[in-house]
């Protein structure tokens, strides 16, 4: 259920991106396609938001039921289960972030190309990680995955445990939040600089 909702969210976001692109770049070329793009754009956005919220809630439920389906020792000892938890946690963080962004900035997030593109990228990255996570789940169930051939071509093996070297993990844990804080403060300073002349006038 969680996968269905989150894939719907990703599809709706993709539809929104394509229809907005059409309306910005190719409007008036075909009246029928203009109408379709307008309608798709109008319906895809709220559908994606609803599906995102439902998918995030369903994923939390799925985490609980999934953790209860396996004995704790098996969960702790299986390398593949560790990969699944890693992918689920990362994709869920991205989806929660998308919900927060959409809740804070509402429909206006789509009003500029940059913000809409980044928001779409966030949701679609979460979807990509979730699809990979489902492939791992297929292996855990002993059934394999439809993506196996594709993953083989990319040389991705879902069985050995994925990890960064400890020094790299520690660096990322410290450096990324610091970099984010620095960028945030820079953006704030730039905003104040723009706001000051307007206030003086």
């Amino acid at each position, binding site marked *: 259920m969680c996968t269905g909702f989150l894939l719907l969210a990703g599809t709706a976001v993709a539809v929104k991106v394509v229809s907005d692109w059409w309306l910005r770049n190719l409007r008036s070329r075909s009246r029928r396609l203009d109408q379709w793009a307008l309608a798709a754009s109008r319906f895809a956005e709220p559908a994606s938001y609803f599906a995102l919220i439902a998918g995030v809630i369903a994923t939390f439920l799925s985490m609980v039921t999934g953790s209860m389906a396996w004995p704790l020792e098996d969960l702790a000892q299986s390398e593949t289960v560790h990969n699944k938890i*890693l992918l689920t946690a990362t994709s869920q963080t991205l989806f929660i972030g998308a919900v927060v962004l959409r809740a804070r900035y509402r429909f206006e997030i789509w009003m500029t190309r940059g*913000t809409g593109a980044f928001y779409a990228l966030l949701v679609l990255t979460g979807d990509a990680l979730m699809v990979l996570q489902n492939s791992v789940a297929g292996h855990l169930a002993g*059934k394999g995955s439809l993506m196996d051939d594709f993953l083989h071509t990319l040389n991705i093996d879902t069985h050995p445990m994925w990890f960064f070297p400890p020094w790299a993990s520690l660096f990322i844990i410290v450096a990324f939040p610091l970099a984010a804080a620095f960028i*945030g403060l820079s953006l704030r300073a730039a905003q104040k600089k723009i706001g000051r002349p307007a206030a003086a006038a």
Partner: protein
Amino acid sequence: MRRVLAPLAIVAVAALLAFTPMHADAQAAPDISITHTPPSAVTPDHQIYLTAVLANATSGSVTWRNGTMAADGVVPMTNLSRPDGTGWVFATYLPAQTSPTQITYAINASNADGSRIESYFLSVDVASGSGLTASDQETWALTLGASISMAASTIAVLYWYTGRRLRREGR
């Protein structure tokens, strides 16, 4: 009058359809079923022994492929003449794999009236001894923390960027 008769006619037809197949069902051939659990802890350089319980089947075969094969391989299954539940135990060997790989395979059970295919998957990997050590768990926990840190930091930057961009555009 028509409004009353139409629903009655629908109910009558539905009742007829519901009762008619009972006789046909009694004569239908019993379904083929396959009961199989993929083997675990399969290591390289050892043949892979597969067993399955096939019910209402007279023969079985396995179609398989590893990560590098361009076409499927097929091996027949042998009836071990050992009953299990409503079926018989069938078995076969897949060739030993020289290195860790993933194998997708399908068991095909058939009788004179038809056949049934079910797909499975197994991993060939070197034995990992006693599983994950405490050090492995710590490394993984750090990786999890790093992944979430990356994702959350990216979202924070997007949050501030979106706010600034929308304010600049006067939204």
